[in-house]
């Protein structure tokens, strides 16, 4: 262990971040040393992004101190962070597609005279940066003409183009890179290390982490779990630390026995594929069964569910009650009594400016149509009021705009909307995202109730405890492929191993 404490360039001490009453980070500790790659490991929602955003000056810590290069560090914004030598490459691309590579790399730092941009100097400067990094990219090309992988490399070049980087944060930089580009990235990281720059690396890919890291810190539920040196730890130990939470009473007990495996499936999907998104996925689900879908971001789960609901085209066969079904639009899907609680309730689920009542009735308008298309408003109101009562949606009245409800109650309104269509197959994509603990439990109870009433449920989640706690069987996806179908009692370690591609 050659690194001395004097090498520590970033020291995070007791940092907490509260969003209202919810703690995204609790008493976080982290020490990052110069010239070393420090990996942050945790499930989706463990608090990695929150921590990075605090370092970048996007969020401000509620309590605690950060020391950077020997002095207190509290950046007001990303520009100040960059001025101190801290740069961050986010996973979401922040490039302008209709501008050139050079314009993007030096955005807001263009060489200029009296506000007029010196195009030649701009190109020269950007070309230098790209050459130093060894990227096979033409800086005069428009970003829109590049592949996703090349764009990610431009994003990295943009992040590294600040004058004197001391600490570089890479947030899942390889998620859209092919092997060749990943190698380029790794050689960039090696050169940074040689120059004494510290790197914070975030990734879910275990092989990559074991190859690249010097130090590894595991965080879980916003809390620091442990920091280990790479030599002293195995993948299994890391996974155990990552998921090692007790599954206590946060999941309600089932109300009916899981259906027998001998029972005929209500829905069978075979060889379901869509180029670039998911490939040859097959599964079936029975009446009253909760089939969990687990996979990391980018595993193709949501895309597959969208295709199943007719929002995207896909090849393969779908059979409902044993008969081949063609589903080419949501209208077809709803006609087959499939319902889809989508991942983003504000974008795809609700009309925020409209009332709770209008939102609840929107997928079942046909039920309230009388002669000449007139609405049966009294029935609509009664149905909405009943659903509000049944799902205990907390709202002043059914006339309240749904946008003014809390996240959990908005999510229940989306559920109510789909329950009104009386679905036989209910797809739930991240049904408890952004929902507080109390509302989560209530949503779980509703799911259990629906299963007991015979609804087949496809539960997609990136929260491992959730799928494990709720599912009768569990499908694990990795990079667009179904890699395992596991029984309900599977251990978190097994699931994680499949999801990260360790076991095949």
């Amino acid at each position: 262990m050659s690194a001395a404490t004097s090498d520590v360039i970033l020291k995070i001490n007791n940092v907490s971040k509260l969003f209202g009453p919810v703690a995204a980070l609790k008493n976080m500790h982290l020490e990052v040393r110069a010239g070393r790659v420090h990996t942050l490991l945790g499930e989706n929602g463990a608090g990695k992004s929150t921590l990075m955003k605090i370092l970048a000056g996007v969020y401000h810590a509620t309590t605690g101190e950060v020391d950077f290069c020997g002095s207190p560090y509290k950046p007001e914004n990303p520009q100040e962070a960059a001025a101190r030598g801290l740069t961050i490459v986010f996973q979401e691309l922040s490039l302008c597609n209709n501008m050139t590579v050079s314009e993007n790399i030096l955005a807001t730092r263009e060489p200029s005279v009296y506000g007029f941009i010196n195009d030649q100097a701009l190109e020269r400067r950007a070309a230098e940066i790209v050459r130093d990094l060894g990227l096979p990219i033409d800086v005069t090309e428009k970003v829109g003409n590049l592949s996703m992988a090349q764009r990610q490399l431009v994003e990295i070049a943009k992040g590294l183009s600040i004058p004197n980087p001391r600490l570089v944060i890479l947030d899942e930089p390889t998620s859209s890179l092919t092997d060749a580009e990943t190698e380029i990235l790794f050689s960039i990281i090696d050169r940074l290390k040689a120059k004494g720059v510290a790197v914070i690396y975030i990734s879910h890919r275990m092989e990559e982490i074991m190859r690249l890291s010097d130090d590894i810190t595991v965080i879980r539920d916003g809390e620091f779990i442990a920091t280990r040196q790479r030599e002293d730890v195995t993948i299994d130990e890391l996974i155990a630390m990552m998921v090692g939470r007790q599954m206590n009473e946060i999941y309600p007990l089932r109300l009916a026995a899981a259906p027998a495996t001998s029972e005929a499936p209500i829905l069978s999907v075979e060889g379901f594929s869509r180029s670039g998104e998911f490939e040859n996925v097959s599964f079936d689900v029975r009446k009253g069964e909760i089939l969990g879908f687990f996979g990391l971001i980018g595993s193709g789960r949501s895309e597959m569910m969208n295709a199943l609901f007719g929002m995207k085209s896909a090849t393969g066969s779908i059979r409902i009650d044993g008969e081949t079904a063609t589903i080419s639009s949501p209208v077809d899907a709803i006609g087959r009594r499939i319902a889809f609680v989508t991942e983003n309730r504000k974008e795809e689920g609700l009309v925020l400016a409209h009332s709770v009542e209008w939102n609840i009735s929107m997928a079942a308008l046909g039920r309230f149509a009388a002669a000449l298309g007139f609405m049966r408003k009294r029935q609509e109101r009664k149905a909405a009021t009943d659903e509000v009562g049944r799902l205990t949606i907390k709202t002043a009245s059914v006339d309240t705009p749904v946008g003014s409800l809390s996240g959990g109650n908005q999510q229940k309104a989306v559920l109510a909307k789909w329950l009104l269509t009386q679905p036989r197959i209910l797809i739930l994509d991240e049904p408890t995202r952004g929902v507080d603990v109390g509302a989560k439990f209530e949503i779980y109870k509703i799911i259990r109730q629906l299963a007991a009433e015979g609804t087949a449920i496809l539960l997609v989640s990136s929260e491992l405890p959730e799928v494990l706690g709720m599912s009768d069987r569990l499908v694990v996806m990795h990079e667009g492929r179904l890699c395992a179908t596991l029984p309900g009692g599977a251990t978190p370690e097994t699931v994680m191993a499949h999801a990260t591609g360790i076991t095949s």
Partner: protein
Amino acid sequence: MSDEKHASFAQNPYAKMLRQYGGILASLVVLCIIFSVMNPRFMTVANFMNVLQQIAVIAIAAFGMTWVILLGEIDLSIGSIIAVAGMAAAQAFLAGFGFVPTLVLTLLAGAAMGLVNGVLTAKLGLPSFIVTVATMGIFRGLVSLPTNGAPAMIEDPTWIAIGAESFVGLPIIIWIVVVLFVFNHVLLSKTTFGRRAYLTGGNREAAVYSGIKVDRVKITIFMISGIMAAISGILLSSRLYSAQTNAGTSYELDAIAAAVLGGTSLAGGVGTMIGTLIGALIIGIMNNGMNMLSVPYFYQLIVKGLVILLAVWLDVRSKRAKQ
């Protein structure tokens, strides 16, 4: 306790209406008071009938525009459709058609022009602003084709009667406004089609996921807008005894102003026909009042613009205060 009070307030339909249209109704009342103080002839039944007749063309076009804006779209071509409708009628009469066939043909022409706007917007995914800027020019050009730019006379007595005669004590033109208001109001607020329009405008994505055929809704609404503009064109040509090639120029702006004054949100998803009717009344009363005071035309334009800004600002402010 305050919650209870709030709830009962929300349930009383009159209170609800006052809350929804309070700002805009206040503007209307203030305008009326100002004009009646300045000119005693303003506040008479005869003058009020006059105002209603004058706003008919704009109000009907604005009913159509309300549907389109409610969707989060815009239709700038209605001024040109008004002119095409008049010219289509004049040419049909010249070709020897009777009143009813001409009427049907004119309405079909409006529907067809709306269909073009709707298909280009919904099926090709072009922004409606661009589509209707283009068709505004194209339709305006079409008007001049039959006569090389000259106006065409209309002599059919039934056609002329629409703009000139009365029925049960009210000018026919006002009856038409009333009937179309009721029709649009009922279609928008009482039917599943109206609800689908609100939902599509409020959040297109969520509407698609909920099984609403949003393209069909869009195309139908552009056709409604085209038909309403054609009816405006019929009234205008009837009052002018002729089809003018520049008829209806810039009427789309008054129609948009009426809808927006009445609380229709340009972002889509929010708006009512009642609001639009009040908006059209405000525009009509301003025109009428200033004409009676012999305010020069260019001052009228300035004052109208300022009043629209003021009314919309008051409305936005009161809505923000509520949130």
